[in-house]
């Protein structure tokens, strides 16, 4: 305890000295370098903090219009009614107060790699030595005919945390018992591969406990999905007869929505009308990354940003690193856990480069936990290494939870507990400590 206190005091002292220095630095001696981070989510907020921890001599500016960030992880539990939105909302006070990151509450609208400048919507020009772009995803409006921003006010996507999360929650609450909840699910790649199936599960939990005559119809643009056997085992055990999942090969792909009629139209013209419709639409890298030319213009990975597997530096534009969902990170999924892992290693890579030395090879990790009910958790985990072929999962490691563990109830209970444990620890590491 005493040791903790002492080290914390020493640490705070060092930070105070640093911030005093950088305050003077505005007029006299500039910081050794300036890193700008666009986006304060799992990737960007981690990178901003860890660059300061790696080298307090580097000044860091975070460009993020919001003062609070609502996480996408755990938003399914708000939708299902067993978490409150306040529990998944985080601010930047620790980042600015404890770690000396400057928060510019503005939106990045353009990047000029020639002058190494970011322009904001408010008209500021901010120069960088290294830039981290972590904008997350944007919805590909119109990829499904009729699915526009206006349509999303009637048929929410709830695939970005915040108002959309609450809209879907309100619609489920207002739905009478016996209604059908329809979901349209996207092709790969997209943010959070198991996310749609966790959402199906916890909505089923809500329906079973409050509106037991209701059903779920999930229309999928894929024939297979993450942790599929574990999800389907759980659905059969927990929610028999409640969930119908329609794969691509059974005409599951939705190509059109009629928002006013709460109707989904499939590739071969089947119409599905439902009481509540949740469209998880196709996605691509956040707008700033695409506008800056960081994304592939065409091919199978069009709209996503190719990066170096060791440094996450863009392979298209020098001195710009793209992390999180917007990047093409080889075998790593688009997940909050992965973005947090990438944020820590990109901080090391940038601090090393700014100090004139190469970075050590990173060892990335991911664990995607999903709850099928508040006390029933499953996971998929992997360790990743950078190779000449890109980022690959280590053979023989990782994988999904066992399908038939010795004590299944206890195993699923423990993984549900660790789901909450991961969220608490990760969000504290990113926004809270």
């Amino acid at each position: 305890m005493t040791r903790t206190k002492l080290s914390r005091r020493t640490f705070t002292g060092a930070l105070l000295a640093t911030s005093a220095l950088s305050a003077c630095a505005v007029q006299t001696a500039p910081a050794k370098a300036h890193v700008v981070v666009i986006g304060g989510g799992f990737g960007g907020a981690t990178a901003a903090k860890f660059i300061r921890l790696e080298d307090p001599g580097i000044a860091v500016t975070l460009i993020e219009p919001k003062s609070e960030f609502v996480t996408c992880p755990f938003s399914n539990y708000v939708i299902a009614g067993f978490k409150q939105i306040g529990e998944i909302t985080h601010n930047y006070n620790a980042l600015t107060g404890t770690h000396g990151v400057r928060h510019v509450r503005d939106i990045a609208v353009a990047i000029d790699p020639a002058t190494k400048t970011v322009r904001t919507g408010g008209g500021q020009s901010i120069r960088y030595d290294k830039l981290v772009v972590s904008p997350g995803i944007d919805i590909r409006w119109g990829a499904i005919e009729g699915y526009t921003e206006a349509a999303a006010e009637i048929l929410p996507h709830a695939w970005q945390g915040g108002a959309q999360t609450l809209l879907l929650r309100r619609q489920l609450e207002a739905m009478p018992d016996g209604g059908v909840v329809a979901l349209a699910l996207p092709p790969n790649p997209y943010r959070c591969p198991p996310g749609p199936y966790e959402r199906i599960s916890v909505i089923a939990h809500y329906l079973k406990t409050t509106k037991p005559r209701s059903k779920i119809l999930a229309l999928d643009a894929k024939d297979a999905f993450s942790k599929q056997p574990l999800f389907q085992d759980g659905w059969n055990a927990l929610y028999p007869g409640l969930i119908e999942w329609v794969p691509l090969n059974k005409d599951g792909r939705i190509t059109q929505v009629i928002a006013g009629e709460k109707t989904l139209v499939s590739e071969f013209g089947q119409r599905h009308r439902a009481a509540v419709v949740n469209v998880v639409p196709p996605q691509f890298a956040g707008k700033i990354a695409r506008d800056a030319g960081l994304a592939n213009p065409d091919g199978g990975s069009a709209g996503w940003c190719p990066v170096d597997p060791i440094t996450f530096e863009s392979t298209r534009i020098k001195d710009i690193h793209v992390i999180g969902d917007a990047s093409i990170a080889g075998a790593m999924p688009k997940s909050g856990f992965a973005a947090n892992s990438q944020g820590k290693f990109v901080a090391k890579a940038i601090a090393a480069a700014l100090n004139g030395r190469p970075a050590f090879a990173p060892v990335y990790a991911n664990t995607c936990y999903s709850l099928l009910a508040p006390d029933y958790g499953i996971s998929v985990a992997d360790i990743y290494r950078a190779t000449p072929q890109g980022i690959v999962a280590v053979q023989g490691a990782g994988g999904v939870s066992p399908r038939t563990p010795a004590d299944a109830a206890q195993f699923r209970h423990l993984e549900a507990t660790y789901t909450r444990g991961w969220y608490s620890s990760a969000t504290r590491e990113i926004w809270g400590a």
Partner: protein
Amino acid sequence: MRSAILTAAFAASLLAGFAAQAQQATPAAGPIPGSVLAATCSGCHGPKGHSVAEIPPINGRTEQQLLSALLDFKNDRRPATVMNRHAKGFSDEEFAAIAREISANWR
């Protein structure tokens, strides 16, 4: 004619640019230090191993405690949900470096 030359020159510069960019970064030589490897652990076990919820904290353990736990997870000698899956992604030498780092610097 002129535009053809310009186009060719443009294509050549694009190719050159592509070749320069396509080169992968070279990592630092030598074994990966514990401070780099252990960066992964805090994702679940919390900042400096101070887990804030139900995941076991890993700060304040001795080097030997940490190393034997990691090796036991890797070799399926200790019950686990996910640690056995993570642990198979690291070498024994890397675990020694991680155990040194955490016992020395995560307080």
